[in-house]
């Protein structure tokens, strides 16, 4: 799965579920400063990752990421052959 695929899968979650503005979903958008991701949003993002990509992010991992691109690459690096 490529980063483009991952970005596509995140798109509806960000727009429909977290209600982030579509125009703000730029690769270098900062999760907290630009998108307004709260600590509860970060936990919800971890749950989305678990359901969609089949792995559970480590505790606090999402809060430690800075940009959307960081998030997409984090997911890319953690996808396993069993959970492509």
């Amino acid at each position, binding site marked *: 799965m490529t980063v483009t695929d991952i970005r596509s899968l995140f798109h509806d979650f960000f727009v429909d579920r977290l*209600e982030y503005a579509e125009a703000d979903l730029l690769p270098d958008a900062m999760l907290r400063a630009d998108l*307004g991701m709260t600590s*509860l949003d970060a*936990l*919800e993002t971890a*749950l989305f990752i678990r359901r969609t990509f089949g792995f559970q992010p480590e505790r606090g991992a999402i809060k430690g990421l800075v940009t959307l691109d960081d998030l997409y690459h984090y997911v890319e690096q953690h996808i396993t052959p069993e959970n492509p």
Partner: protein
Amino acid sequence: MNSRRVVVTGMGIWSCLGQDLSTVAENLRSGRSGIVFDPSRLEYGLQSGLVGNVHRPDLRRLLPRKLRVTMSPDAEYAYMAALQAFAQAGIDADYREAHEVGCIFGSDGAMTSIAELTTLMREEHCSLMAGPNMLFRCLSSSAAINLATAFSLRGAVLNIGATCSTSSHAIGVAMMYIRQGLQDVCLVGGSAETAAETAAGVDALYALSLRNDDPQRASRPFDCDRDGMVPSGGAAALVLEDYDHAVARGADILAEVCGYGFSANGTDDISTPSADAEYLAMQRALSDAGISAAEVDYVNAHGTSTQVGDIAEAEALTRLFSSNADFSPCKAPLISSTKSMTGHELWMAGASEAVYSILMMHGGFVAPNLNLDNAIPQAQQLSLVRRTIKTPVNVVLSNSSGMGGTNSAIVLRRITH
């Protein structure tokens, strides 16, 4: 002891009688029932399919997501009622930023969210699958804490839970906070879900009406043919304020909350009301207000339409108004239970009935006790109102009684300034 006076400067309502004060006032005046039959409740497993027809608000245009997703259904109702109450009181975001506003709200359970969480845990066996917002929707205090965050409140924020007298107690407690100078302004109220999950426990007590084929005649407080209550819900909110504070900022004063009384049954029977204890709570409320029974124009009775509840309350009211030294039959207060129209609004009932009473005060009428064809023997001496009566209403006694034997009464008085 500080003797500050406490007044109402704003009200809001979200109920089966309407979603704004003027609609609700009109429906009270015309004696319109808000009760419907919902067949899905029978499919769920209840014996009674009756419920107050309360619409769920769409908050997407009013609140950002982060403030919505932590709200239980009753917190959503509470938000809509609070929005109206703050608007009427003229308390906007700038005021709340500059002043400490409290929030003492009543709720006694968020069953829908708890049922959702329980189902999810049994299916998923993983707490993480519940998501981060579930906790805040499951709390009894969901309405109070969500109101505090949605309106950025900085005063005392707490939930009161006391079964069906919950929000009457909330009004009384907030009144004491203001009287004692702990707060100048406080949002009070109550909220309740209408979900089948909430009604299931009451249904199991055979306390719900089974008049499924005749919803609008199902809730019949003090009538010989009553067969139980009709569950309902929504939210009611009032802005309580120190009188001098309200005058200083030029607020319109809707009424004074001048008395609060409470009692507990002191028995080992959790579901049977006590006439003695209800009498005591009402007597204390009148005493606290410095008002005699003869001065009461209208009693908004608890009147749930249950077998034992109505008998106990009728006995308490008869004693209260016939034993007073300066009482005479011509001074008998008018009495009705608005639950005949709304059903039992559970945790919000004390607050909603305060709102209904103040609407009657300002409309110059007393709403009817619907479906009262043959009054029970214990109510024969009471002036129960069968049809809307146009009359000045200056002093109201609002009575509430809850399972577990927790009773509360408040006195409202019309004032001009």
